[in-house]
């Protein structure tokens, strides 16, 4: 189903002379996990607030689930769960009391609220501490409570701002697991972050933000091709006649460069994934294939490369 859950057209927000978001065109499909990436102050949070109708756009249009958040804020906010960055709770209230306030604000009946609170707390693994004051919760527990809070309203779309920031690796991993569960249920997720390997792990598509503009959108491999401008790097380890293997590899169609390392290691740069062809070439040249691996493009590389490139352009 390729229905658009979020659609913005030339969306802009200015605070005085400062342009926070500049003519943003964003389209997120139903069931997708979309990552907004960019440095602090690049307009991610402002974009999110406009999607929720919490800030009015200066220009442009927004449609969330087909509705205009500025005109129909109640309908939008009843269907969209939002977890702000550094989500806060009323510390002297218990987890259950905090969620029950949110349920009442959503107009849920007492019974319905209790059921949903119980199931939401169980899903994020907090049912055992449901009646403890939130003041005793660790940061990771608060984030998970934030997810439970979002789940109370059975959202179609969940928006998370920097959800894994400040979590320890274990906490972050279990949090990413929760996001994957949401995706498995068909809930669309929009998350903003600058923790790249985590975004890479869960996001179907990412958009790179810079100074209020989203200049690159696509899947991670897609972005790698566009930003890094190189194809695939294949690592091979071989025993046997290394010179003949080198020649054989160089002759393969699509190979750009072959570098020889120590201990029979090769690094092959190619325009596409040549693992099968390379293996065949090594064996036919009389070599024994010990190892074969392809280097996955990392979002870290893309990000660093992209922002470095941009900075170079600007200093020139």
């Amino acid at each position, binding site marked *: 189903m390729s229905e658009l859950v979020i659609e913005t057209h030339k969306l802009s927000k200015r605070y005085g002379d400062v342009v926070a978001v500049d003519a943003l065109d964003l389209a997120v499909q139903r069931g997708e996990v979309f990552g907004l990436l960019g440095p602090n102050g690049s307009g991610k949070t402002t974009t999110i607030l406009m999607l929720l109708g919490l*800030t009015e756009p200066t220009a442009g249009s927004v449609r969330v689930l087909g509705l205009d958040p500025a005109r129909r804020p109640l309908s939008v906010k009843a269907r969209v769960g*939002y*977890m702000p960055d550094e989500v806060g709770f009323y510390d002297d209230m218990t987890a259950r009391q905090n969620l029950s306030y949110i349920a009442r604000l959503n107009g849920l009946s007492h019974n319905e609220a209790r059921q949903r609170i119980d199931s939401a707390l169980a899903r994020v693994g907090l049912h055992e501490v449901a009646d403890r004051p939130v003041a005793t919760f660790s940061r990771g527990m608060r984030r998970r409570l934030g997810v439970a809070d979002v789940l109370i309203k059975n959202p179609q779309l969940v928006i998370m701002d920097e959800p894994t920031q400040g979590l320890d690796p274990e906490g972050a991993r279990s949090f990413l697991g929760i996001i994957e569960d949401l995706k498995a249920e068909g809930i669309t997720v929009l998350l903003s972050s600058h923790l790249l390997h985590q975004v890479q792990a869960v996001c179907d598509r990412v958009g790179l933000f810079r100074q209020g503009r989203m200049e690159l959108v696509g899947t991670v491999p897609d972005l790698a091709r566009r930003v890094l401008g190189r194809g695939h790097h294949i690592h091979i380890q071989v025993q046997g006649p290394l010179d003949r293997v080198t020649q054989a590899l160089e002759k393969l169609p699509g190979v750009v460069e072959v570098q020889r390392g120590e201990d029979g290691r090769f690094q092959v740069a190619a325009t596409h994934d040549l693992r099968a062809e390379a293996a065949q070439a090594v064996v036919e040249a009389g070599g024994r294939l010990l190892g074969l691996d392809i280097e996955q493009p990392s979002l870290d590389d893309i990000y660093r490369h992209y922002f470095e490139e941009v900075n170079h352009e600007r200093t020139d």
Partner: protein
Amino acid sequence: MSAQTEAIRKGRREGSPWTGLWAVVGKEMADHLTSARMRILEVLIVLTAAGTVYAALKNLSSSGDDSFLLLKLFTTAQDPIPAFVGFLGFLIPLIAIALAFDSVNGEFSRRTMSRVLAQPIYRDALLLGKFLAGLFTLALVLAAIWLLIIGAGILGLGVPPSGEEVGRILWFLVASIFYGGIWLALGMVFSIVFRQPATAAMGAIAVWLFFTVFWSILADLLAQALSPVRFGTVEELFSQAQLNLTLTRFSPNTLYSEVMLALLRPTVRSVGLVLPIQLHGAVLGTPLPLHQSLLLVWPQLTGLIAATILLFALGYVLFQRREIRA
């Protein structure tokens, strides 16, 4: 649905601005009533009431005058303890400011504001809910104290309250609640303007101190400057005093004490300046009926309510324009 779409097409907002209002009121009131801050204030006000009423009871049982005894419980001072109403003048602002000073900026500093506003409610409901919760809490505390005092009076004096007395006490309760409402709304305005709860509390207390201590001095000086007495004529003296009175009435404290005077002392016939000629034919010392006393301070009473509404409206406008991102 079609009516709703119609309304949206006309540019009106969807749904009622008060969606979720009672959820906010319920949560905020529960917060107020269980907070340590409120307990301290309750203890303070109960101790004050107990001390002053005890002193008043001792005084009253030794005096021969037995008209409007219950009202006198509020107003009788026994040296060195002032009357209960004297304490109310500053206890009510204290409670109101304590309830309101961190109501909005506290949500920002706890980072709960954006989470709450991401629920299907308008900002209107959040702000009004917080204000009403404060007002109801104040009303609850004051009503409890009122009942305790009446109860102590009935037990201590052995006199049942008359309908007239109950009416006066209830109107005085209404006036006290709205006197608190002013400070509550002021505290909320400061909590919207200032990001730090401590700054907001200091701001509200500064305003309160200004009206309690400095405004009467300032009104005096202003009256002397704007309407000077050059030749010492009666007209000059009178117009200066009149201006002075008008100026002091800008202070909610003055309005409240005038309402208090007229409602709790039925023999009071005027809260302003009186020329001897205006008293022609009046039988001094006889009490006024309740509706006459009310008529006397009706402007003051409506003034208290109007000031509450105006201050709330100011806070409302400021809050609507506030950017949500912290």
